[in-house]
């Protein structure tokens, strides 16, 4: 399978005042992201997740190392717009990423920036709004919408640029359970349609739905694999200051009492099935 994103020995420093000491937010990451995959990234506050996301679409350029998005170096000025179009980004705060006071104008913002023809923009906007099931709100003002609806509009705004990959930086962190559920379902649908998905999240129940989980701690990847593999390292995850999914936690405790539970039981549904069939 082809890789859409390749990261080689990435290091990133935030400049500090006075220019002498710097804050190293990413401390050497090498990573490939497969086309069409669904990767969840978890890590505690300040571990460098957002920094990594911003590096992936060229908002920041690496201090050392390289990032390729579809073979374009993100540090190459000639391809910034190609990179940003290919790897779209949805941010955490739904309020602070909508530009226009009309939903459909906001969705049109991206395609307008890259000089798409008006008819084509119209088709894309309608399709994008339908994909996130916000078609009926197209003439509303963003401040009249709920957080989950705003976040769906933000997703539509990225979709209208026809990205191959979308990086979601904690898109559900500020939403209520209903909004979270809706947004997550849309993310999964988009991934099923072939868009490479990188989901940064604090919610373990979201992470277990991915094909691959990366755990970042202090600017480094400490665990990488499919959810079952990664969550079998419950102790390391806890050392990194994170929770493990409830089902995993339960499995760990039951195993201590001598009950043999397979490693791939990581979601609540798996656990329910397992317990019901247990003899």
């Amino acid at each position, binding site marked *: 399978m082809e890789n859409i994103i390749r990261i080689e020995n990435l290091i990133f420093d935030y400049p500090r005042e006075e220019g002498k000491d710097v804050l190293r937010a990413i401390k050497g990451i090498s990573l490939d992201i497969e086309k069409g995959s669904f990767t969840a990234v978890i890590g505690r506050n300040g571990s460098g997740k957002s920094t990594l996301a911003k590096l992936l679409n060229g908002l920041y350029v690496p201090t050392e190392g390289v990032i390729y998005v579809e073979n374009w170096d993100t540090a190459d000025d000639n391809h910034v717009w190609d990179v*940003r179009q290919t790897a779209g980004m949805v*941010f955490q705060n739904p309020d602070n990423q909508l530009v*226009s*006071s009309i939903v459909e104008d906001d969705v049109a913002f991206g395609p*307008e920036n890259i000089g798409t*023809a008006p008819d084509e923009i119209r088709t894309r906007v309608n399709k994008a709004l339908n994909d996130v099931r916000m078609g009926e709100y197209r003439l509303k*003002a963003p401040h009249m919408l709920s957080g989950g609806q705003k976040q769906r509009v933000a997703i539509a705004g990225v979709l209208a*640029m026809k990205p191959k990959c979308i990086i979601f930086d904690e898109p559900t962190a500020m939403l209520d359970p209903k909004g979270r559920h809706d947004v997550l379902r849309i993310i999964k649908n988009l991934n099923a349609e072939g868009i490479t998905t990188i989901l940064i999240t604090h919610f373990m129940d979201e992470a277990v739905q991915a094909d691959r989980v990366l755990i970042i701690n202090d600017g480094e990847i400490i665990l990488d694999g499919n959810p079952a593999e990664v969550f079998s390292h419950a102790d390391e995850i806890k050392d990194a200051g994170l929770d493990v999914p409830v089902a995993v936690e339960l499995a760990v405790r039951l195993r201590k009492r001598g009950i043999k539970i397979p490693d791939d039981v990581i979601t609540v549904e798996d656990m329910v099935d397992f317990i019901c069939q247990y003899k």
Partner: protein
Amino acid sequence: MIRDITLGQYYSVDSPIHRRDPRIKILSVVMYIAALFIVENFIGFVMAAAALGLAVAVSKVPIGFIMRGLKPIIFILIFTFSINIFMINGRVLWKLGFLEVTDNGLYTAAFMSVRLILLIIGTSLLTFTTTPIKLTDGMERLLYPLSKIGVPTHEIAMMMSISLRFIPTLMEETDKIIKAQQARGADFESGNLIARAKSLVPILVPLFVSAFRIALDLAMAMEARCYSGGKNRTRMNGMKINSGDLIFMAANILFFAATITLRIWR
């Protein structure tokens, strides 16, 4: 409650005036204002009032709504009326002590007031029938030629539309801050003017901080969506002048020509 605020004074109905291209409406208002200053006799004012009356009727904006817009200028109206009525020389009609009302004074005062009223109604009809976003779009396109001589028309229009977008967000933010301060015992209602003004400081400081945070976030989000200024930018809703716009414009030109003729012919 903050969610229900309407921006500007837009009156949301569908009417032939609402549907007109914003550029045409802006130009028409400019022409109408010019006409008001050209007109100087009774027939002229009757014509101007009739034209505006027709536009108001077609716009479906209720008269009461429009009259409310006049309230803030009542004071100015009375002021100019009194100045004009007493200050202009002519044949004396009445005498009130040292104050004299002359025929010329009465005429000028009446004309001035009617002119002001028509001016306010005319311009507010523009904001009643055009959404702020369409107004900014229309302005941007009308001012486009100025960008050739270095005026940042796109940037100005972008700034205006972003401000419109974030007014409700900042109001919500203010609401939150006020509640948070009140929960800690802050008092915004009592005391004299200075005390009250001082009590605003703990609201304004965090408000500025959050406005900056929002601005940074938004700039990041706009860049991520490939924003790079007005160059090579296209628009989804290209403005198109249709036959209705042409008829509306023709009517306006006709009216403008009539006022000029009237003035010269006199």
